[in-house]
Each structure stands twice: as structure tokens, then as C-alpha cells.
């Protein structure tokens, strides 16, 4: 299980309705179904990942998040998840609006571009950061909208979105007192639990 998934599962209520945007191979929904008896649906566009979902009995809809979520009814989910996908969307702000329209709560996780390693890479090399965690070059990356913890805080404030919980972790999903003190500098993955204001 990915580090962010390990943490967000604790924010999901038993027997609740969950929509996982960019659900991958369905492993998180499978885990939540087995441990919390959630009623889950995933959206995915990768053929092989969709096949994995189908084989493990996870409901999955072949749908591009950039086309929006207009086919879902308002308030039809308890939680809408957007894990490690925000930065790959054409209109991340619009999708967050839609998430909080169709779901009571939202969970968003993203790689924090404000992390000191990214800052150091850019300031010392003068080139866009490439790492094991973010392995793409600037011209072929699916990640077109990187943001920092402070950027996301600002977006939430602007949209009157309530941040119920915010946590930052490193790639081993370990938090620390220093990360809590300086999340934008030290956190590698940002994890937000949000709701309408």
C-alpha cells in the first residue's frame, strides 16, 4: 500500500460510500471494502488497471477525470478520494469543486513541490527536479500542475474549503515533529482531508 493510502484509510468511515478518482488497480478500494465494508466505485483510464479492478471485483468506470464528474449526483458519496492525481489534471481547481459537490468530504494527496529537495535541486542545478519520486523530464511528465503545501492552503482559503486535517509525510510515510513544524519545507507527500466551508 502506498504511504498516502496507509494514512487516508483511517479517515474513511465504515459502511460509507467512497469514490476513488484515479483508482489504479483498485487495491485501495479492495482494502477498504474488505476492512470497512465500504460501497466503492473507482474511475480509471488505464486499460490494464481497469482490468485489474474488474478481476478483483471492484466497480470501475472508464472515465477521464479531465472530462469532469458531471455524471455523478450531488451528495452521492461520503468521501471522494483524489490520491496522487491532482498534479496530472488539466483543471485541478474545478475537479476539487466537483469532488466537494458530489461528496460530503474529500481527501486529496499530492507530492509537495515545496519540499527542500525540490527547492535545492532547482536552485543548485537550475533545472526542473527529477528524482526517483518524480522521474519524468519536464517535456514528458504527466504531472502538469505541481503545487506546494502553501499553494494548496491558499486554494482552500480562496474557495472557502475547510481543511479538516492536514498531514505531511516522507516517502516512507513517516511523519515527524520537524515535518509538522515545517510541512512545506520538509513534507514530501501532502495529505488533506477537506470539506465544504
Amino acid at each position: 500500500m502506498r504511504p498516502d493510502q496507509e494514512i487516508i484509510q483511517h479517515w474513511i468511515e465504515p459502511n460509507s460510500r467512497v469514490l476513488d478518482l484515479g483508482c489504479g488497480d483498485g487495491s485501495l478500494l479492495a482494502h477498504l471494502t474488505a476492512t470497512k465494508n465500504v460501497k466503492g466505485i473507482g474511475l480509471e483510464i488505464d486499460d490494464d488497471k481497469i482490468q485489474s479492478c474488474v478481476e478483483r471485483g471492484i466497480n470501475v468506470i472508464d472515465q477521464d477525470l479531465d472530462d469532469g464528474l458531471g455524471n455523478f449526483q450531488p451528495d452521492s458519496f461520503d468521501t471522494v478520494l483524489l490520491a496522487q492525481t491532482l498534479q496530472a489534471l488539466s483543471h485541478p481547481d474545478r475537479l476539487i469543486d466537483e469532488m466537494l459537490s458530489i461528496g460530503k468530504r474529500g481527501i486529496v494527496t499530492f507530492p509537495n513541490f515545496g519540499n527542500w529537495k525540490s527547492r535545492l535541486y532547482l536552485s543548485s542545478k537550475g533545472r526542473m527536479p527529477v528524482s526517483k519520486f518524480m522521474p519524468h523530464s519536464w517535456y514528458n511528465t504527466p504531472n502538469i500542475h505541481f503545487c506546494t503545501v502553501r499553494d494548496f492552503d491558499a486554494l482552500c482559503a480562496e474557495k472557502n474549503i475547510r481543511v479538516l486535517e492536514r498531514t505531511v509525510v516522507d516517502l516512507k510515510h513517516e511523519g515527524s515533529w520537524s515535518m509538522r513544524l515545517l510541512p512545506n519545507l520538509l513534507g514530501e507527500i501532502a495529505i488533506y482531508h477537506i470539506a465544504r466551508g
Partner: protein
Amino acid sequence: MQETVQETMQDSIAFDAADSVGIVTPQRYHFDEPLTLRSGKTLSAYDLMVETYGELNDNRSNAVLICHALSGDHHAAGFHSNEDRKPGWWDSAIGPGKAIDTNKFFVVALNNLGGCAGSTGPTSIDPDSGKPYGPDFPVVTVRDWVKSQHRLMLKLGIDKWAAVVGGSLGGMQVQRWAISYPDCLANAVCIASAPKLSAQNIAFNEVARYSITSDPNFHAGRYLEHGTYPKQGLMLARMVGHITYLSDSAMRAKFGNAGSQLENTTRGNLGRDLRSGNLSFGLNVDFEVESYLHYQGERFSANFDANSYLLMTKALDYFDPSVDYGGDLAKAFEGGDCKFFLVSFSTDWRFPPERSRELVETLLKAGREVTYLEVEADQGHDAFLMPIPRYINALRGFLNHAFEEITRDAS
């Protein structure tokens, strides 16, 4: 909408292949209880022709119903004899180890009422007159078919289908099962279908019907009594239908393989293969596609009853389960807990992906469990009968998981 462009592919399939259900024998089931139809008319008694593949398990939980489309019948898989050249219409998906795995499931396929492959229909003898029903056979709807399928289910000793599966008009029957008998199916597999026809769909059906009814040999539907049948009309109906089941790209591929004979461009010849190599400068058949349509029309008209064709197209046109729910289809799907599995194909312009997405949206609104795949395929509407890997693998994955659930529930 079947037995179309797949002949060449199926020529290599043999009745003794390890993944074939082999030689199968259809069975006739007789029903004495009168069936009141949607129109208000009643069929006092009727027969259904049925084929089954695989074994029903001890707790009768592994049965899968296959619903056929416009021109299909009960012969969905296997061969009727060693000499049979072609297998059933969905042999690519039904058999041991195939997507609808007969090692796991007991598969039931039938010919719907009003058909012409042995179930009671316009060519059957009307007990009241002693003559073929012909045009007097009542109009049957998808709802009527599903009602008769439900009676068949009970006769077979089955309480609940593991899955009801169908493409196109067959997918409409799947929807109707989920609405009329929500407790009688665990999974609904609805492929290349739509919640109702569009004006364009109905228009194509009307062209087909008009070409049949305007044929001088139609005799107001009593052609059998006149010892003839509306061959030209049926041919034309099938030719038009056939064009709509294929995509532009499928036709280019099918009729453009011989390379360019008219234009030597790198983009190919757009499927304009010539039949003889020369233009006739007359009204003869010049292009392969023309010859193909003539062949398909001829073959179809010799094997399919015109009145049945008219009935099937009417059943398509009339399908709209939302009518009982004030136009809100989501309300229709609110009862029941079966899981839905839907697939559409990118070049299908008869039932395009938008129509399946409409259905997905409706099912989500009704709070139902849905899986939906939009498959890239060149073959148009006919794709639902083709062994397209992404589609077939997903169908297999879905049904295998369904089987695991059934066996787990039983243990």
C-alpha cells in the same frame, strides 16, 4: 445484428476444438399457461427453443442467460452436426475456458417469441385458424420476452441467474430483467446497448420495415399462404442494416485489403476494391462492397422470416422502460442489488458510447454498482460479437469474479 463479418475468422473453428462446446442439440420447451402481452393480447400457449451448455451445479446458482439481438437465436455456441460449417453466433465468447466459461457456468440461450428459429412466431400455426400466424402474430416487446424467459427460468428449476448477458437488443433484455425481476439475477451484462432508441435508430428500422412491406410479394404479411416471400424487401432491409452495424473504418479494412486498384495513394483505397479489376460502366456490381452486401442480403432473406424481422424491429423501437416511471429511468433501476457490467465500442454509431454512458449515469443515480468499459474497436456495432482482447478479457474477469462470489457464498 449477428452472423456478420466474422465468417472468415470462424472458418477455422472446429467442433472438436478443446474450447468448443462441441455438438449441441436444441430443445423445445412448451408452455401452456397463457402469456398476456404488453399490447393486451394473449398467447394461449407457446414454445421456446433452447440450447444449454455446461452443467447446472447442485445449488443451481451457476446459470447464465444469454439474450440474443435482432437476428440471433438459441444457437449461440457449438455445432449442430459434424458437417456444420459454422458454430453458433457467439461461439467466440461461450465455451470451455472462454469468457463465458462453460466449465464454470450453465449457459442457457433461447430463441425469443416472434422469432423464426423454432420458438412460436409468425411462421407457427395459429391454433385458432389452422394457418400460419403471419401478420396476425401479436407485437411482442422486450418486456414480453423477459416474462417468457422468466417462465423458462422457473421451468429449468433456477431461482436466480448468476448473470443475464446480452448485446444490442439483447442488452435491452438485460436491463428489463434488472427492472422486472430484480431478485432473479446477480449480475447484469449489457454490451453495446442503449436505454432506448434514438430517432435515427428508429428511422433505420422504418426504412427496413418499409422495404419489406412495399415488396409486391409481401401480400400484407400473408406471403406464406401465397407460396412466396418478400425476398427483395428483406434483402434491402438487411443491406441497410448491415451498413449501420459496420463502421467506415471496418468497411475500409474489409474491402481495401487487395490494395489500390483505382488510386495508388499511400492512404489506401478507402475500401474500394474492385470485383473484377475493371469498371463496367454500367449498373453492374463493380465494387467488392456491393457484392458483399448482395451476398449478405441474399443469405439473410433465405433464412429469416420477414414478419419476424418486422416484429424484432418494433420491439427495438418500443423499448423504453422509463415510461412506467414518469420518464425517470433511474427510478426504474432503484430496486435490486445486481451488479452491472457495461461495454461500448468507439466506432459503434448504431449504439455509440454516449448511449452506454447515459445508462451508466442513470445507474449511478439509482445508486447501483456499475463497471463500464469504453473499448477502442474498429468494427462498429458488430464489435460486440468479436473476440476483441480488451473486451473479452474484461468480460471473462467480471464473470470469473462473479463465479468466485457464487461459490464463496455457497460454502
